[in-house]
């Protein structure tokens, strides 16, 4: 299964390990991601869109046109890019004025977008093209006893006009992947709450208040770790966790993994190949728990 792969800016910087782990597990799932050559910023959720909506949609349209040249649907690992490219795709289909203005902007540069390219999230590929059964078959080290809290966040499930593959209120795709890996999917009330996204830059305290909730409720539900399919959520839950702990005077120490990293662990891949050394909140607790599991198995 081959797709036009849109990495997005975070994947090339703070979220490299998400893509490293995706690359490592894709081999076992017959998924091939072919990077869109010379892709640009997806158009950003709101940072560019609120400043200049035409520019945001035109940036997305350039990526869509480049994927169209490859004759493949777009797949992205990032929930924000997934939403932004989907929004542009819909606006060009439903808003004739926007379509003609975007056409003017990209046609002069020698690009043309006919429409018809689907924008899909990697989780959709796992759930529907690969399937949970195929994931289960590749498991070499079942994550038995590991309690995992799936954090879906917002943009993968909720906005109208996205390629919908899960329920916006009670999504289950990541729960099913977690179960396929032999781990326990923890039930907690904040799996579709909002981390605050880019508020981290302009309104840090608001973002910390928002991100505190899933971290606390996952911990209260005795999760050993959280998994996420989004670099923005990961940044706020993971890289900012220490700041949240000191701001609210709470103790968390909750590892946050990308869903691809968790899959890789269950496939028996070396943590280094999955970029787990790049996690800021130490994932050692997970290793210890799994080590115990493995010794039990051996004895």
């Amino acid at each position, binding site marked *: 299964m081959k797709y036009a792969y849109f990495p997005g800016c975070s994947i090339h910087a703070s979220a490299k390990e998400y893509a490293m782990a995706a690359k490592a597990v894709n081999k076992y799932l017959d998924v091939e991601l072919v990077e869109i050559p010379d892709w640009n910023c997806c158009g950003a959720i709101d940072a560019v869109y609120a400043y200049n909506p035409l*520019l945001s949609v035109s940036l997305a349209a350039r990526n869509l046109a480049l994927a169209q040249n490859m004759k493949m649907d777009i797949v992205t690992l990032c929930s924000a890019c997934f939403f932004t490219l989907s929004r542009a795709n819909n606006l060009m289909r439903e808003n004739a004025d926007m379509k003609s203005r975007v056409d003017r*902007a990209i046609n002069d540069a020698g690009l043309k977008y006919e429409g018809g390219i689907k924008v899909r999230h990697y989780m959709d590929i796992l759930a529907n093209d690969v399937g949970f059964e195929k994931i289960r078959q590749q498991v070499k080290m079942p994550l038995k006893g590991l309690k995992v809290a799936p954090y879906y966040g917002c943009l993968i499930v909720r*906005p109208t006009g996205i390629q919908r593959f899960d329920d916006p209120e009670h999504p289950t795709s990541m729960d099913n992947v977690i179960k396929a890996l032999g781990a326990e999917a923890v039930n907690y009330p904040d799996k579709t709450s909002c981390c605050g996204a880019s508020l981290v830059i302009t309104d840090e305290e608001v973002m910390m208040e928002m991100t505190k909730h899933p971290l606390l409720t996952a911990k209260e539900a005795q999760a050993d770790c959280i998994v996420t399919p989004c670099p923005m959520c990961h940044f706020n839950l993971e890289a900012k966790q220490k700041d949240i702990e000191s701001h609210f005077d709470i103790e968390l120490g909750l590892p946050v993994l990308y869903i691809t990293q968790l899959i890789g662990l269950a496939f028996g891949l070396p943590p280094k190949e999955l970029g787990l050394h790049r996690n800021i909140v130490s994932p050692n607790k997970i290793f210890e728990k799994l080590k115990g599991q493995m010794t039990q198995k051996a004895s």
Partner: protein
Amino acid sequence: MKTHSSHNITAQMTDPSFIEEIKKIPGGEKILDCIQCGICAGSCHARFAMDYSPMQILKMAHLGLKQEVLSSSTIWICASCYTCASRCPRGLNIPAIMSGFKNMAMKNNVQAPIALKPKFHKTFTEIIGKYGRMHEPELQMRLLKKTSPGELLHNASLGLRMLRKGKLKLQPSKLDSSTHFSEIYKKASSEEAK
């Protein structure tokens, strides 16, 4: 938290053309379909930090209270999480309307209650124009308030954490110019300004 009763609204405060402006926002076409049911206010994850709830903002928009809407903190605090939009029984795309309000506020130079906000949008967009992709360290540097050593230290500590883990890309990515990124950027920027 503020409230608006019709008692303290005068005709001078209202702008009857506001509703037509909102209908031109992509996603704002259905603004008048709002029935004030309150599901957006009840669902909003960021309500605690807003002066008006999204439901109040929609009512104020109906009334034509342009200045109040565009100077509210609500429009800037909305994180585009889409909880309200996915639950709205009338199918309003509330986050898209909030983005449209931000756009109007920036175009009309309305003072934002969170001073950094308009600068964030402008700087982010300029960096994309420069490289074609985001370059996080430059965004952070350009948005730093130069007056606060505390903030400098705070950011430096996160920066170090990121740097140690190889999560900070110090060199910006550059696009291959053959696919004419900057032409599209310039064209879309000048079209929008018209």
